[in-house]
């Protein structure tokens, strides 16, 4: 009975939304000849989208998210329908497991040939069925050379994030997976550990760090680091370079203890009504000249071999974007955590945010 009432209510709501929605935004939805692309914020050269629309006549509705978790909850809630998404590897593998991702027809994506061997068939998509790698990179520590003393960064350590000297000037990830990865690595543990004791220890470190933290941020990190409001922040390598381009006092390093290495890959949702157009979009993003332009804008490392050759030498030899093998060895790729660890993570993160000093 309850189920019936609930479904009747749901049907009424959906019907109302469809009726109002179609009246208000006719053609705004994914009508044929348009695709909905859902990507990280500040993670594309916008002019590339215009070129795609011009060449193919397919309209791109482009929206962004700040974290994998945000993207995931929006998709499973069914509140919006997207065609192309660009999640990180651990989220992608979770979504593949849950049947949310469609198998790609690689006949429509001939440019897949450019993707380097070492980026194919990675752990999240071992049979190369679901995804085309978009960019990769590591988490780095960004700091302001004007305010951070040289001896504090000489060892290139994670300890900088816990250095009391810079209390109130440290920013931290506002998403638990990245924040806990830093703490777990600092404790000498794997960031994919499922041992509750290690998670609790990491939580304690974050708790200890909280009074030193100016703010927990995602995309706001750009503003706060560039305007020198904060001096130290962990963030993704490509974004770190964007910040360094804007403010010459900024520098960054991959911490010696290791860091998260991520691969973000393009894929098509199984609920997509425009799979062919979506594949056309993915293929377009892998056109060599487009990939070059995009890479120059987003500053992340790219798995596209032909485009890599066309990047300027300075970028190709930048060890922060393309870290040498010995650094990468210490880096770790996220794997999808089991539900009980996710529950613990959520619990510990909320506890961190609801502990008031």
């Amino acid at each position, binding site marked *: 009975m*309850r189920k019936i*009432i*609930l479904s009747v*209510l749901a049907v*009424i*709501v959906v019907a*109302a939304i469809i009726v109002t929605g179609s009246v208000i935004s006719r053609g705004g939805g994914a009508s044929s000849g348009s695709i909905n692309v859902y990507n990280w914020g500040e993670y594309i050269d916008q002019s590339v989208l215009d070129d795609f629309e011009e060449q193919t006549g397919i309209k791109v509705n482009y929206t962004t998210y700040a*974290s994998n*978790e*945000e993207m*995931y*909850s*929006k998709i*499973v809630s069914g509140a919006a329908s997207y065609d192309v998404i660009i999640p990180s590897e651990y989220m992608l593998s979770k979504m593949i497991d849950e049947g949310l991702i469609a198998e790609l027809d690689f006949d429509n994506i001939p440019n897949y040939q450019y993707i380097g061997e070492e980026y194919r068939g990675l752990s999240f998509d071992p049979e190369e069925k679901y995804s085309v790698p978009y960019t990769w990179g590591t988490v780095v520590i960004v700091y302001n050379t004007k305010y951070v003393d040289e001896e504090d960064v000489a060892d290139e350590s994670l300890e900088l994030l816990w250095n009391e000297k810079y209390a*109130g000037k440290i920013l931290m990830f*506002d*998403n*638990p*997976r990245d924040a806990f990865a830093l703490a777990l690595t600092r404790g000498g543990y794997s960031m994919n550990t499922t041992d509750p004791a290690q998670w609790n220890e990491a939580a304690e470190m974050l708790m200890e760090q*909280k009074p030193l*933290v*100016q*703010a*927990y*941020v995602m995309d706001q990190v750009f*503003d706060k680091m560039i*305007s*020198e*409001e904060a001096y130290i922040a962990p963030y993704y390598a490509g974004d770190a370079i964007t910040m360094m381009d804007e403010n010459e006092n900024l520098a960054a390093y991959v911490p010696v203890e290791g860091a998260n290495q991520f691969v973000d890959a393009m894929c098509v949702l199984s609920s997509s009504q425009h799979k062919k157009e979506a594949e056309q979009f993915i293929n377009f993003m892998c056109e060599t000249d487009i990939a070059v332009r995009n890479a120059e804008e987003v500053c992340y490392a790219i798995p596209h071999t032909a485009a890599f050759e066309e990047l300027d030498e300075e970028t190709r030899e930048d060890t922060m974007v393309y870290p040498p093998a010995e650094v990468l060895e210490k880096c770790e790729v996220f794997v999808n*955590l089991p539900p009980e660890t*996710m*529950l613990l*993570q*959520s619990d510990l*993160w*909320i506890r961190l*945010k*609801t502990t*008031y000093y």
Partner: protein
Amino acid sequence: MTKSVEVGSKKVNLIPFSGWMVVFVLIPIALVVYYAFTGVDGFTLSNLTWIWTYRSTLWLSVWLSLLATAICLLLAYPVAYMISRASEKVQRNASLFIMLPMWMNFLVRTYAWMTILENNGLINNGLRLIFGEDFAGLNLINNHGAIILGMVYNYLPYMILPIYTALTKIDNSLIEAARDLGSGGVQIFRRIVLPLSVPGIISGITMVFIPSISTFIISKILGGGKDFLIGDLIEDYFLGNSGVVNYNIGAALSLVIMVMILIATCFMNKFDKDAKTNGGGVI
């Protein structure tokens, strides 16, 4: 026009409104109630126990919202009073200026405060012009004070306008009569103006307190995302930013807040009726 036609047309006029209420108020509330009382095994009350787990968060939210509401009232009453006593032209312009910030998006305005309050922001850089470059700067952002400021700034118009409306409705002859009978300014205010403006005050308190207690974006932007308010907690359970989506706990927390607000509103409405006045109107 006959009476029956009038009644009939009123009924027709009500259809869009009732439809709106059902789809966007009643059904969502029904869904919140449904989720709040269900879990994996069907009916349960356990979701509601989470409010006890998060009592310090609830307490912090109530405390900050009460402070914000009190500050709004203290700021708004004199302003509303002065406007209501001014000439018609001034009244028109003043209401316009109070509404003016609302023409801009709430988020944009809150982000603007970030630029004002930051250590390298307008205020601190202004102080540096006075005290020299070495001035360390005041700690104005990423704390509870900044959250209260955000609430006061964003919701102040909702306090001024109802009080202003209530004040303009006061019949001037009452004041003249009091004066004729020898009342001084203080006595007139205390015994006539203040009691008659109670409905406006109550409206204002409700309209400031409710959005304050449920905010989540102000604490994120101006509080530095460090301390969750109850609104942040609910958002987190619905969006799963911490890694787990749980509509049931989120709905249970929302329900508790709704019931709290409902009780407070009923209580204040009763207070309003006791004052035996009209005008203003409680929302």
